């Protein structure tokens, strides 16, 4: 009986020591953790990836315009890479069912910024009939990407669309994509101008 009491006490001390050690390790790791707003978690054990806030666009809740939303994307120094990340984030957001601007499955094939300031957006995964009709839906879909470029990519002067590597004339039956597109200020919600 006496031995059993000693055994219980030893086990209790051991468990307490383990818990205290884990607590200290958690506290030290928490103290070293970078601010969540500006960095992402470590990837593959490497250095934390710095992020930057960009302005993307959702349909406005109370009008047929676009409204700005803030989102973070990885921060890169190359302007063309930055353009690709901005458009990628804008398209990924636009296909979310809650946003509903682009058909599910729409993907960015490639995107780059030319020295002249043209942002070339090459899309894939679109349905055969494009965006599915409706000038308003088509206008908002196109302008969500164009406005993201205009707002977040300094030096970008226009946007050109390709689909599966070929120049796109339209993504439906309405908006003409043959020329370089400038951001349509009329489409932006007052908060986004």
């Amino acid at each position: 009986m006496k031995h059993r009491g000693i055994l219980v006490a030893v086990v209790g001390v051991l468990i307490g020591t383990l818990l205290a050690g884990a607590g200290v390790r958690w506290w030290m790791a928490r103290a070293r953790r970078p601010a969540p707003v500006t960095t992402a978690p470590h990837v593959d054990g490497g250095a934390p990836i710095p992020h930057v806030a960009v302005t993307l666009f959702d349909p406005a809740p109370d009008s047929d315009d676009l409204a700005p939303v803030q989102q973070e994307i990885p921060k890169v120094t190359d302007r063309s890479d930055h353009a690709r990340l901005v458009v990628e984030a804008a398209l990924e957001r636009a296909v979310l069912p809650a946003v509903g601007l682009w058909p599910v499955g729409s993907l960015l094939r490639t995107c780059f910024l030319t020295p002249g300031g043209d942002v070339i957006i090459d899309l894939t995964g679109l349905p055969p009939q494009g965006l599915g009709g409706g000038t308003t839906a088509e206008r908002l879909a196109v302008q969500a990407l164009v406005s993201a470029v205009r707002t977040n990519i300094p030096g970008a002067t226009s946007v050109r669309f390709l689909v599966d590597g070929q120049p796109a004339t339209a993504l439906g039956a309405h908006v003409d994509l043959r020329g370089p597109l400038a951001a349509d200020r009329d489409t932006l919600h007052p908060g986004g101008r």
Partner: protein
Amino acid sequence: MHITRPVLALLLVTTGGLLAAQSPAPPQPAETPSVPASTSTLPPAAPAAVSASGLAGWIVVLDPGHGGDDRGVQAGELVEAQLTLDIAKRTAAALSAHGARVVLTRESDITMDADARAVRANQTHGHAYLSLHFNRSPRTAATGAEIYTHQPASMDDAEPPDAQARTLALVRWDRVQDRHAPAAEHLADLLATALGHRVPVSATPHRRLPLRPLAGVDAPSVLLELAYLSHPGQAALAATPEFQTAVSEAIVEALSAARRPPDAAR
């Protein structure tokens, strides 16, 4: 000799350009359309003061949007491609009754691309081109008719006139609508007013965009989005004969006003 479609189109445009001088009068300020209280019902129809021969001598091209493989907006059993064809045929009858010669770009459920529609319009040397559509928005509360006119994507690459270097002006296919912009704006304002008296219209009834179906048309052109099929009430309304008749009457009234000389319109 093999003549490609773009070359043929350019020839048609160049020939059709001779009619540009016949474009309707410069824009006159139009009254602001009244927005009906309900977006799913029709207001009391305003009497249209249009003479039975008010459109005599005019050629009107009606373009029922979509068709064939391209169904356009679909809402339940409603299909935009069929609705636009129904309204085009109804409107064609009303316009013909007022003396106009009406050409439909398609008269059945066939696939047509935008260039083929423009070629059809330019072959007929129409005085006005109306592309008929129904709208969709990710915001299901969106309602009301909208009228769009063509706005060039960018004027930066417009070719400057150089009369000394050229003896024949070349008009780019995607630029031909530009020279009809004032008359198209005027027609859009007239349509906004006429539609606003008869059917629900959007809070912003007249918008400008680079529009694929209008860019190559050599006549004052507008694209009509007559109602939002993404709105359940509007979709039900759009399928009714009353709505379609109201739209056709509004088009007759607006085109008759556009046809009249400015002095007669006052």
